[in-house]
């Protein structure tokens, strides 16, 4: 009997020796917060911070916000609980906001239609007041100065365009500000990625807004305007001064340039091939009946470079409206009238082609144009009823060089402000403009995968980073963003946070039908 125990003991010892052990076992103790204190992390910003993707905030989409992903890594080194505005009511994960026009359900790719569209169903997200400050204070649509605007969360202001429905959902009072709610949590660490909307909304709207440079009163700005650099600098400094007022450390981030966002880079300026135009005969017909005579008249008017005959061998540029061109409507009307066109037709041609030209490589055609090109504008007679071919795309579908220049000037100015503030306050700078610019040539992660700024395609199911709205990252993209911020934190605050591998995060939702 005694022997048996000895055998068992020997056996047990044998099994114990069999447990594999690393020389240095990876545990949470291997990581450190460095000089930072992640006890209470608060994120301020706009849609990019809120976890907005596929055109909305949804329950599951929000769970992939970059602040949420960061907080999971902070938790390894003492980070506390991280709360986000409640989307519990979004039971079916549709996103959108119930009853508000323009706040559609999340975009999905309908495989039967081959295009993104809002997922079928009715949003169950309401404006019911949660009256609570959350660690994630990202408010979709917010511009820099909105974070300081009292009443931005006042339900009564929504209909008047003075309040933001997303902030209405969680503002602690009708008169509070986003920043005040954020500060009520007494952050020890913050991220601040605000400012994109101060210029990007103008770009998304195709430059139909106004560049408010010189106008110091943001109360007079419309949604799609570019913020005055002075207004931006002042708002930005106030926001950061407030965030650091309690001794918090943090990361502030620059805003990306339009050229690294697929919304602006996906549709080429010259997608019109002979096949897409309907074949060789159609191209010849267009040249004889429209492009030829138009080119002739424009040449006589000294503006022959506005338009060239369609080529049967190369991709042809889209016809667009350029509001910076001299309006030749009267001259065109006169020319076509004298050429024997009925007066009404000649007048119509003049009105439509007065500021028309073919797009060039220096124009940016916006993503929604892809579903517009080739379709018929309302109440336009043939043969002028083909968008981009016989009827120019309008201002809101295209960014022309002068608009791009304004956007770049504003973006550079805002980013210079952000960099100066980072230096002045000793804060870590996540240069998201530079990081996202890497996507244009390819951003290679530690695992060897190379990501780029392309719009979704079925060949890139596992590597697409942008959501179907073409502006916001998808879950995988936010993981890339979070990982880049971690690198910045590790560097600036001597921290050692575990990295995030974006390859494991989901891409777009594809449904066989909708």
């Amino acid at each position: 009997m005694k022997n048996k125990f000895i055998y068992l003991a020997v056996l047990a010892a044998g099994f114990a020796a069999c447990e594999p052990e690393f020389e240095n076992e990876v545990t949470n103790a291997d990581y450190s917060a460095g000089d930072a204190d992640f006890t209470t992390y608060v994120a301020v910003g706009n849609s990019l911070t809120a976890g907005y993707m596929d055109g909305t905030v949804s329950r599951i989409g929000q769970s992939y916000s970059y602040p949420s992903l960061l907080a999971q890594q902070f938790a390894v080194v003492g980070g506390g609980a991280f709360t986000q505005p409640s989307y519990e009511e979004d039971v079916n994960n549709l996103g959108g906001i119930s009853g508000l026009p323009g706040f559609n359900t999340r975009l999905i790719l309908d495989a039967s239609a081959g295009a993104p569209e809002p997922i079928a169903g009715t949003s169950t997200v309401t404006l019911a007041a949660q009256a609570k400050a959350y660690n994630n204070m990202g408010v979709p649509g917010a511009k820099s100065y909105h974070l300081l605007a009292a009443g931005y969360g006042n339900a009564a202001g929504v209909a008047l365009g003075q309040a933001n429905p997303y902030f209405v959902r969680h503002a602690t009072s009708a008169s509070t500000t986003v920043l005040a709610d954020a500060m009520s949590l007494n952050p020890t660490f913050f991220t601040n990625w605000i400012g994109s909307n101060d210029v990007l909304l103008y770009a998304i709207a195709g430059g139909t807004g106004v560049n408010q440079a010189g106008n110091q009163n943001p109360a007079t700005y419309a949604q799609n305007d570019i913020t005055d650099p002075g207004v931006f600098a002042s708002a930005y400094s106030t926001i950061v001064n407030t965030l650091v007022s309690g001794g918090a450390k943090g990361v502030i981030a620059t805003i990306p340039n339009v050229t690294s966002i697929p919304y602006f880079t996906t549709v080429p300026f010259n997608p019109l091939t002979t096949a897409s135009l309907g074949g060789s005969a159609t191209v010849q017909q267009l040249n004889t009946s429209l492009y030829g005579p138009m080119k002739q008249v424009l040449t006589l008017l000294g503006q022959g470079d506005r338009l060239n005959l369609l080529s049967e061998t190369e991709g042809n540029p889209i016809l667009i409206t350029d509001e910076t061109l001299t309006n030749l409507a009267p001259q065109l009307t006169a020319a076509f009238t004298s050429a024997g066109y009925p007066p009404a037709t000649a007048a119509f041609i003049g009105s439509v082609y007065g500021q028309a030209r073919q797009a060039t490589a220096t124009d940016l055609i916006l993503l929604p144009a892809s579903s517009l090109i080739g379709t018929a504008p309302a109440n336009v007679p043939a043969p002028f009823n083909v968008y981009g071919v016989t009827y120019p795309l309008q201002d809101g579908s295209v960014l022309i060089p002068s608009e791009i220049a304004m956007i770049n000037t504003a973006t550079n100015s805002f980013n210079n402000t952000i960099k100066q503030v980072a230096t002045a306050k000793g804060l870590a700078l996540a240069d998201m403009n530079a990081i996202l610019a890497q996507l244009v040539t390819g951003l290679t992660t530690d695992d060897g995968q190379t990501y780029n700024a392309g719009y979704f395609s079925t060949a890139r199911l596992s590597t697409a980073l942008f959501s179907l709205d073409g502006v916001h990252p998808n879950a995988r993209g936010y993981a890339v963003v979070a990982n880049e911020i971690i690198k910045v934190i590790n560097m600036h605050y001597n921290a050692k946070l575990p990295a995030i591998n974006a390859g494991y995060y989901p891409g777009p939702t594809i449904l066989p039908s909708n």
Partner: protein
Amino acid sequence: MMALAASSAFAGGYRVSLQGQKQLAMGHTGVAVVNSAEVLFFNPAGAAYLKDRFNFSAGANGLFAKTKFQNETYNWTNSTDNFGTPFEVYASYRATDWLTVGLAVYSPYGSAVEWDQDWQGSHLVNNIDLQAIYIQPTVAIKVNDRFSVGGGPIFVTGSVNFNRNLTRSLTDEQGNRSDVTVDAKGVTAWGWDAGFMFNPIDGVRLGVNYRSEITMEARDGDATFHDLPAFAQGTYQNTQFDADLPLPAELTAGISVEITDKWLVAFDYNMAFWHVYDALTISFANGTPTSVNPRNYKDAGTYRFGTQFKPNEKFAFRAGWYFDESPVQDGYFAPETPRNDSMGFTGGLTYQINPKLGIDFSFLYLHFDETNNSYNYYSEDGSLVSFGGTYKNTVFSPGLGLTYSF
């Protein structure tokens, strides 16, 4: 029977060196050792020199294989514990003075690794269970007291079951990761084994044995997809698959020396021709894209040392050591066979209940250094993606056997 079948995860590739209790205890040497019917596996030629007319040996091991994985960059940790029971049965009969016949049944290949479903390396493997049982009718011919030859055909029956996630990120609408199981049972193949033994002087034996490559050709196995999103159900439909899994050829040469009539030492060198395992290619019957998984194994050698001491008629004590080189090359370290070079420490004893019947005990402890390695050939949207970290294995295997001879 399934429970008895080889199932393990250790040693080079998916080779399991546990083919005899006596010889395992001696570092799994045996190509030049004439001890028992186990010699049918190690070198059939040696059966010609077995002292008794009838020899029977059978045994099995409890195989405890554990692997730990960690990656400090991402704060990943994981582990897998696997248990298997490789077994062997050998019988030989000396029909005439010069002719010995025998039958050997053993399980030299097998791999069972079960990671947590959806773990970090799940796009490479969630779990694998590979089994192969060898049945080898054998003849040994004693040319004279100095030289013998032996060999026989090998019939292999095996099965494979393998599950992995389709990609690193694909899920169904509920967020469950999409995965595929390939399963093939009753896969059979033929091969052969041959060897010779040369005894230049009394007390010294030299042996050489060659076991042929055998390719397990799984045909019309079942590929079953789970948790697919609706849009992908057209691309990935349950179907049949074909795959070839090579069980490489192995050449062994060795020597044993009886230093005294009680004390024997042995040395073996194995070379396993693993280079045949170039890639695991799974082709599907319907339009499902062919899955090519580069392996690029290299030939790998093993150095084995063993000794046996028989103080009396009742007991025999054995010990051994070996160095087992992994066929897995840097950058091809896949978690389905996460094996690097190892050192085996073995021991055991036989208790002879009576002159005919003995009980064999053996144990093996395989030591692996921890290793930093990765698999760099997973293809994602046309780019190669790496998965790796630090791996540490340990293997412990006690074994028990019976020997009966007269």
